[in-house]
Every structure is written in C-alpha cells, then in structure tokens.
C-alpha cells in the first residue's frame, strides 16, 4: 500500500469536519435555528455563542451546521443527477463514436454548456419560483454535459483497446460492453470529476441562495446567511465572515481531496500541476 498523499488526508479531514457537522445537525444543534431571541441579537463570537448570533438572535454555529446539511445535500444530489444523466449519454456517444448519435449528443452538450448554471437557475426560477429543489435541478443540468464529456473521453480511448475488440468479436453488444467493461474502467475518472463537481456545486448553491434563487427561509443556507449579513456588515462583520469561511473551507477540502484522489486513482493524469 502506497502512502496516501497529504492533499487527500488534509482534504478529507476538512470535508469530514463539515460532513460531520451536517450529520450532527440532524439530531442536535447547540441552539434551535428557528427560535428567535431578540435579547441576544448581533452578539459577537463569545463563550455562549462560539460564532456569535445574527440579527434575530439565532446562534450562528447552529445555522452553519444546518447550512452544511443544505449545501451538501444540494451539491450531492446535483452531482448524482449529472452522473445519472451524463454518464449514459457519454457511454452512448462513445459506443457510436463518429456516428450520428455521437454528433447529436456532443452538439447537445455544447448547447447546454452555453447556459451557465446561473442562467439555467434564472430560467427555472422565473417559471417555477425559487426553491432548493430548483437549485438542485439547475446545478444538475449544468453537471450533465460535464459528465457526458468526461465519460465519452475516457470511453473513447478504451474502445480502441484489444480486450474491448475481443469482447466485440465474442459477440457482446455495445450496451453490454459499455456497462461491463467500459464503465468499471472509467469509474476512477468519474470519482475525481464527481469530487470537482461537488465542490463547484457547493459554490453554485451558495451563489444561488445568495441571490435568492436557492434555499428559501426558514431553511438555513450559507448563501442566504451571507445575503442577510450584507446590510449589517459594518456593525456585525462576524455574520458575513463566518459563513464565508465555512464555504471556503468546504470547497478547499473537496478540491484538495479531488487532487489527492486523482494522484492515487489516475496516475496517467498526474501531470505537472
């Protein structure tokens, strides 16, 4: 067993802290995130409230914990959605490489790429109204062509290999080959890409919630905490600083983890970075 890269350990530790906070928040938070306590409003970080309180007297540590749950849930489901839609499309395109299906899928990919996640979210929200679910759909749609492209790229190089040819000669169909031989061999690639999209998803969720297109009150979310903090930044800067650090550390953790995973899972891709 090779020694694990430092980036993987540091990244997994950082990510783990927030995942743990999200898990704990399901059964316990230091204070209730729904209860208002006007007497304790806008307190700076201290012994009673480690991260201080907001303009309603809510405990910011508790909100960060519940917000972690929102962020992680949105990003994970959006990654899942992107994989479920994108991977089969990529496999299909690679199996029919050079053909009409491949061309249609790739042009469709380019088209979706022309819609930034924010624009997709704007379109969805304009018609269905804002919600965390719509944020998931928007980020999920954005993720789809990414996974399709990575899958197709990985699968294309495999289709030229002898053992795939052998499987074809043995009479296996394209679908069977894609599922039995191609998919397991690009799983590493997908795990690494999944980690990257996970961190992008956390950033996107925060941005969407910040502009009001994502999670709606009373559901705590890091992006909305920042939006609420904005008008109070001159006299309660902790309200703006703390949720931002939560986002940065989570994203940093996931990115480091992605780098580390790439190093152990995909030595070919380990380039001069």
């Amino acid at each position, binding site marked *: 067993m090779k020694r694990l890269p430092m980036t993987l350990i540091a990244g997994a530790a950082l990510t783990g802290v927030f995942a743990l906070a999200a898990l704990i928040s399901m059964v316990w938070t230091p204070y209730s995130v729904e209860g208002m306590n006007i007497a304790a409003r806008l307190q700076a970080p201290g012994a009673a409230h480690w991260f201080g309180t907001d303009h309603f007297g809510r405990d910011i540590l508790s909100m960060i914990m519940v917000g972690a749950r929102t962020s992680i849930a949105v990003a994970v489901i959006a990654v899942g959605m992107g994989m479920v839609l994108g991977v089969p499309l990529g496999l299909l395109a690679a199996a029919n490489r050079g053909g009409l299906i491949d061309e249609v899928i790739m042009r469709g990919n*380019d088209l979706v790429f022309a819609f930034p996640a924010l624009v997709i979210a704007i379109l969805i929200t304009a018609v269905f109204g804002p919600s965390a679910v719509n944020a998931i759909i928007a980020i999920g749609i954005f993720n789809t062509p990414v996974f399709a492209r990575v899958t197709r790229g990985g699968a294309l190089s495999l289709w030229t290999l002898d053992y795939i040819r052998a499987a074809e000669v043995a009479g296996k169909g394209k679908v069977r080959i894609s599922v039995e031989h191609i998919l397991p061999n690009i799983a590493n690639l997908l795990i690494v890409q999944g980690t990257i999209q996970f961190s992008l998803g956390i950033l996107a969720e925060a941005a969407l919630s910040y502009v009001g297109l994502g999670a709606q009150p009373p559901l705590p979310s890091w992006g909305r905490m920042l939006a609420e903090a904005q008008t109070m930044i001159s006299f309660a800067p902790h309200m703006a600083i703390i949720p931002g650090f939560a986002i940065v550390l989570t994203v*940093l953790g996931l990115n480091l983890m992605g780098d580390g995973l790439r190093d152990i899972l995909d030595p070919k891709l380990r380039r001069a970075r």
Partner: protein
Amino acid sequence: MLRFALQRLVSLTISLIVASMVIFFVIEVIPGDPAAYMLGMNAQPETIAALRRDLGLDQALFTRYLGWIGGMLTGDFGTSYTYRVPVSELVLARMGVSLPLTVYALVLSTLIAFPVGLIAAARRGSGLDAGIMGATQLGIAVPNFWFAMLLVLFFSITLQWFSAGGFPGWDRGFWVNIKALTLPAVALALPQASILARVMRSAVIETLGQDYIRTARAKGLSARQTVVRHALRNALIPVLTIIGLQFSFLLAGGIIIENVFFLPGLGRLIFQAITQRDLIVVESVVMLLVFAVILVTFLVDLAYAAADPRLRRRA
C-alpha cells in the same frame, strides 16, 4: 481558414436557433398562460385578456416565436410589463454597466494570471511556486460575492478608499465610474485569475518540456529569452480557451456581484424582473447572455484556429 470560419458560423447559427427555442419554450409555454402568470392570482379577466392581446398570445405558437426572433433581430425586444418601456432601452442602459465590468474583470484577471503563472512555471518546484499554487488553490475556493463583501468591509468601511456601492453613470465622467467598478472587478477577477494562473503554469511547463525549447536553449538563448520568445507563444493556445470560457463565468458572476455593490446592471434588472414576473425582460436578458456566451465561444474557436493551423484542417 475561410472554410473553417464559415463552418463555425453555421454551427453558431444553429446553436442560437436551438437555444432561442429552448428559452422561448421555458418562458412562454411551460407557465401555460404567461399573461395570467405575470398578472398574478387576483387579476381581472379583462386585464388578462388585454395583456394577452398586447403580448400576442392569441396567435399560434410558431408565429409568436418567429415574431419574437424577428423582433430581436431588428432590435425590438418587446415592452417591459413593469417598466412600460421598450426592453431594448432597459437592456442597453444596463449593459453600460455589466459589459464594462466584465471586460474590466477579464483584463484584471489576465494581467494578474499571466505573470503569476509564468513565474510559477519558471521557478517550478521552488518555495515561490508552492506559495503561488497554495494561494491559487485558496483563490479557487473563495466565492466571489463573499470576497466582494470582504473588500467592502476592508476598503470601504475600514479604510474608506472606495464607496461601498452604487454607480454614478457614464455622463459623470470616465474615472469616477472606473473607480466605482474597481472593487467589483477585483472581486470578480481574483478567483478567475487563480484558475487562469494554474492553467498558464501547466501550459508553460508543458511547452518547456518540448524539443524545440531545448534547441532554443542549445543555440544559446537565455532561460528568460526562451520562455518569452518560444514557450509563451505556444502556451497561449490552451490559455486562450480558458480566457474565452472565463468570459461567460465573469458575465454570470457579474450578475451576482452587482447585488453586492448595488450596481444597476443586467443582474439587478433580471432579479427584479423575476420577482415582478416580468417574463419578457427575463426572456430577453437570458437570450442576450446565452448569445454572448455562444458568440465568445465562436470567437475563441476562430482565434484558436488562427493560432494553430492543424485545427483548421481537422475541422
């Protein structure tokens, strides 16, 4: 090159047509009756009927689509339901903020990333390189709107060098507006510069490993001359693609940053339009954003082919 450009132009047109159909479908077909949707639950039937007539909803779907596209091509984007002015006027005024902001941020991002990426590549493996890579790793993780808030906290509230937001308008002179756009542009540029610097670094490192670089060194060029004359030019190709991609990121990011600084740009316009259910404005602005992204992709493709003749033949 001409054939390549024409091919790209055809695919650009097809992309635009399909994208416009998608946008039209989402905005005008999914809500059922856009007029009823825009007016809300308590609207009188007569008001809805009048708006339906105004919007031309009594016509066939395809006629409406053609009307919308035709209008866009001639500069008629329809009339905003809440502002009661032509959407083109609104959009044009807001573009005067959003476009300069995007370009400003793109220039800043490039100006920061080029030297930083180049130095990291030239000093590969050194402490400086490690420091730069660490800093860019952090830069990528920072949400630009949060970074914008930190800038406001430090430069506007603590130091009071910049105002915390607002936009004087171009009739008040050039530099006051550039100053007003500086903090937003920095906030937008820094995370993108982090990505660009990393791309720049790996592109330069890759070209430095090529044979012609060794030849250049062997014929007596200094390390500096080699990097500037040979490595840089070839490294620019992948970097160019990323700069193109960044344009759409910056345009979308700008929409969010405008909220932090209360800038009257496209972002403010579209978010107000969403809350006021002004679907015509949403539709036009979204189409415009997508058009910008597709157009920039097209231009990058052309630039790419101009820089690398092999790509022209392959297409």
